[in-house]
């Protein structure tokens, strides 16, 4: 298997994937918890929730995440890109520790170490599965 090396620009795109997703989720959570409980019988109220400020900001961040995620998927495997999204949790934990001065328990530090080691494992390997050119052509014809 060929070892696909990523460029600095591609690492930057993976960084955007990692940062935008957890920040977007946090904004969504802040917005949804300030709303009254939504019943399954009234799903239309979920649509109305989309236009509240916190949720709208969360969606904007998630759009940024999705654009960088799609770009990353065009040159790397899904199982290579996904751990990068989990690495965002580590970034948020470091921000909360050193910027917001929140305490981090030993269990959380253990989580940070495990995610970092896991992402390191994947990053050391190839970013894309090599496949025979004929097989790829056949699949592209099927999609068309």
């Amino acid at each position, binding site marked *: 298997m060929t070892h696909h090396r990523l460029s600095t620009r591609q690492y930057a795109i993976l960084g955007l994937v990692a940062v935008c997703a957890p920040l977007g989720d946090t904004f969504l959570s802040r917005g949804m918890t300030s709303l009254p*409980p939504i019943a399954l019988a009234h799903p239309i109220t979920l649509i109305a929730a989309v236009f509240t400020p916190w949720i709208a900001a969360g969606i904007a961040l998630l759009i940024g995440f999705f654009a960088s995620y799609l770009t990353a998927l*065009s040159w790397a495997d899904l199982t290579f890109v996904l751990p990068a999204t989990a690495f965002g949790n580590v970034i948020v934990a470091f921000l909360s520790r050193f910027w917001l001065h929140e305490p981090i328990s030993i269990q959380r530090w253990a989580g940070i170490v495990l995610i970092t080691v896991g992402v390191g494992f*994947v990053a050391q*390997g190839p970013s894309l599965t090599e496949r025979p050119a004929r097989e790829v052509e056949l699949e592209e014809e099927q*999609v068309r």
Partner: protein
Amino acid sequence: MIVPSPVALPGPWAATAMIAAIVLSSTAGEVLTAAAMKSIGDLDAIRARSGMPGAIRAVVTCPLFFAGVGFLALAFFSLLFALNHLNLSLVAPASASLTLVTNAIAAKLFLKENVDRRRWTAAVLVCIGVYFLAH
């Protein structure tokens, strides 16, 4: 200002169903989207060749992409619904961890990705790490 009214938290089965809905729809969406992007090719190269409009055109003319986005939208609204009933500290790590494992299985089965021992180890480490981080 809307004041949230106090409600009882849903039972374990309802919580499991909400998280399962997020995980399954998210996995389907991510696998379909990844398949779409692989069939389109390197977006950076397409953008260098035919500009941003060319890259956008390549994405929005791929039917697989819309199938993926449909499932991702379903996952998003399932997430909103779950966040309205459950705590973020439960929903985010549970869905993120489980999605990593289901995606690794689906990527091997449907995308024929080379999910070798290194990637399985990484998926499991990240899965446990996300769980620890949220508790």
